[in-house]
């Protein structure tokens, strides 16, 4: 049986889909058999981030309604054949699927794949309930902002209440320079408040937008990027490797400048 991991956040737009696409691809690069499931019914995006939008024929809803077989709905990635996407329906609402159906779909996938990554929609309503229905693990994505952290906290409580005991935290879009001048919560601040194990830290990186434009997850790009490396590290940790956290602290902040000034002048 493969691992079923839901990627969720509460607040919208914090980077769930970006995370799912990149971790999915990075795990596939490690030769794992991976399926990424778009559980954002009505607002699907995962196909775009993976550059697979033109190859979507059937969706999860078609499988559930018997229009097609599960394997017909799965879109295989050309760059990495061991990564496939189960697209969400775009023309249906979140209520067209229920948790029992999700469990059915996903348990079928878990028989074949090492990893089933479920990209959850924002919110804590039906779409979220569907996304977590079959998961046994969760990745909670947040940004170092008050509303995102509060929503993440709410989601962590709901995951616990739904018996999903294993959760890891990703802090996305951290801006080291702002942390250095005390205008943004640090990784330690957020981790201490949310009190679940830290799985990774991803810096705010313009390259993320470029990669989205191209439909090519950052972990695929030949030249290493900070965010890409961060996602690769997360995939390695998820896969059981022990990987040091990236050092994202800014060395040339005001305090160190003053420190340097005095050390030099002494």
């Amino acid at each position, binding site marked *: 049986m493969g691992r079923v991991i839901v990627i969720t956040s509460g607040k919208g737009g914090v980077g769930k889909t970006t995370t799912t696409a990149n971790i999915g691809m990075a795990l596939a690069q490690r030769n794992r058999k991976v399926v990424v499931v778009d559980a954002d019914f009505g607002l699907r995006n995962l196909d775009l981030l993976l550059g697979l939008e033109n190859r979507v024929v059937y969706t999860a809803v078609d499988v559930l309604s018997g229009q097609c077989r599960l394997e017909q709905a799965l879109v295989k990635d050309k760059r990495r054949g061991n990564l496939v996407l189960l697209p969400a329906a775009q023309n249906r609402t979140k209520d067209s699927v229920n948790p029992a159906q999700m469990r059915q779909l996903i348990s079928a996938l878990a028989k074949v794949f090492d990893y089933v990554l479920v990209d959850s929609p924002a919110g804590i309503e039906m779409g979220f309930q569907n996304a977590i229905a079959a998961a046994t693990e969760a990745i909670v994505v947040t940004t170092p902002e008050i509303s995102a*952290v*509060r929503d993440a906290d709410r989601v962590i409580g709901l995951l616990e209440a739904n018996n999903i005991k294993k959760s890891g935290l990703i802090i996305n879009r951290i801006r080291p320079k702002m942390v250095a*001048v005390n205008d943004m919560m*640090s990784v330690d601040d957020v981790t201490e*408040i949310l009190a679940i194990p830290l799985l990774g830290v991803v810096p705010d990186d313009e390259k993320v937008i470029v990669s989205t434009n191209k439909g090519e997850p950052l972990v695929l790009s030949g030249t290493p990027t900070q965010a890409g490396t961060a996602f690769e590290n997360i995939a390695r940790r998820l896969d059981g490797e022990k990987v040091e956290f990236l050092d994202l602290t800014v060395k040339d902040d005001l305090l160190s400048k003053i420190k340097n000034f005095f050390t030099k002048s002494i």
Partner: protein
Amino acid sequence: MLIELLEKIFPTLNDRSSRQEVKNRLKLVLAHDRSDLTPQMIESMRREILEVVSKYVDLDADAMDFALENTSRVTSLVANLPILRVKPEFYTVKGMSEETPVEDLPEISIDESAIGDLQETSDLRNENS
């Protein structure tokens, strides 16, 4: 030495940073979110607890503090109720009441030669057992 001095000075400056402010706001809002207690429930808890405590002691109303706190996902109700004094009717050692005149008290005498006798006998008993 200068660096240490700087580091000592800087955190106090940083306390007013937006980072510190957002942490404080978050901690407070999460303590409430996590506890599922409504403000009304907290207020009536506060009132009832004060009522009970005030039966026994006088509290310093200005310095009182009553808040929800949260560490590692466990919410606690932290009340800081500075006690000004215990209410007289609950003094464990009653003060000498003025109505008892000194003359009425039994005289107290002392047998100088017997000082320490009691301790000796009890010491022996302890050794034997």
